């Protein structure tokens, strides 16, 4: 049961421009093909048929940052890679979102103490929207993270006014504006 089911009458749809745009955008988040370490394997599993990230419209992994909306930083970010990650982020068109996937990108993970060349959290390099902890996170966790990104997009204000951050809710839906 996705959030959209049962919300429409047949044939005639009345909605706001903003909702329509946000709905379109949240249902076609294109992530960037880009994996840095072991977490990428789990990201691939998420993309494959068993977990099928395409159910959420996020299955079109783009090979270029210029066509991507979402950057899933899956894996250990080394100091050498950090500047490249930053550049890729800057090449993505707005609006763009970042998921930090795995303990390494959340805060250094297993390399926190002795990893001399590991960035202690990718949020030191690019702004992160959703953190998905785990080493590696299960595909379900990544899908959960993706749904939180969708929540965030859903709350976006296209018209005047401030976007509100979604409030997580145990039902999985954000509490605002639903």
């Amino acid at each position: 049961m996705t959030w959209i089911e049962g919300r429409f009458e047949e044939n005639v749809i009345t909605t706001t421009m903003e909702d329509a745009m946000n709905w379109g955008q949240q249902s076609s988040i294109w992530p960037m093909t880009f994996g840095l370490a072991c977490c990428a394997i789990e990201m691939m599993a998420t993309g494959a048929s068993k977990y099928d990230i395409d159910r959420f419209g996020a299955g079109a992994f783009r090979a270029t940052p210029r066509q991507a909306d979402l950057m899933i930083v899956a894996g250990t970010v080394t100091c050498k890679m950090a500047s490249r990650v930053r550049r890729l982020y800057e090449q993505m068109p707005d609006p763009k979102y970042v998921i930090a996937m795995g303990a390494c990108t959340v805060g250094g993970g297993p390399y926190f103490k002795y990893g001399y060349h590991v960035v202690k959290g990718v949020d030191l390099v690019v702004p992160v929207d959703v953190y998905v902890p785990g080493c590696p996170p299960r595909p379900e966790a990544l899908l959960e993270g993706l749904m939180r990104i969708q929540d965030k997009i859903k709350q976006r204000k296209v018209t005047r006014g401030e976007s509100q951050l979604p409030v997580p809710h145990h039902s999985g839906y954000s509490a605002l504006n639903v």
Partner: protein
Amino acid sequence: MDINEIHAILLEEFGEAAVGAAPHDCIDPWIQVAAESIVDVATFVRDDERMRFDHLNDLCGCDYFEPDEKKAKKFDHEPHVEVVYHLSSMSLIHRMKLKVSVPRWKDNAEGSLPEVPSVSSVWAIADWHERECYDLVGIHFTGHPNLRRILCPEDWEGHALRKDYEMPLDYHGIRNR
């Protein structure tokens, strides 16, 4: 071919100063080679009919050092760094190890890297192995065609697998701790 036979041949060819008195006896016996003669010895064992070590499986660097003063008392090695050459022969199906040991710093001046002649002219694969060894253990391979860092960024400071290596606190403005 047995390591003792190989050692006897090398001893005959190069003398005790170059190849050490005897092979070290352990599970994986090795022959100690003086740094100056490693290229000659390597070329010889590759080309000699009886040995034909045509394949360098691996080349590693190793730092023997204990930075902790308390533990250093129990540490029963002279501080030094070693280069280990793992060789095998594809045609004659046998293996051996060569080791070269050098002081941790050249002329005991901290920061100046010890030198070992490069064997990349003997086995081409040694090119990258030596770059890695230079990058992480800090051994300068003289005569190497392209001795640059291979894993760490070019402007990295220090050699990470040295036992007294200090983690950088930040790298280009990115906090590292």
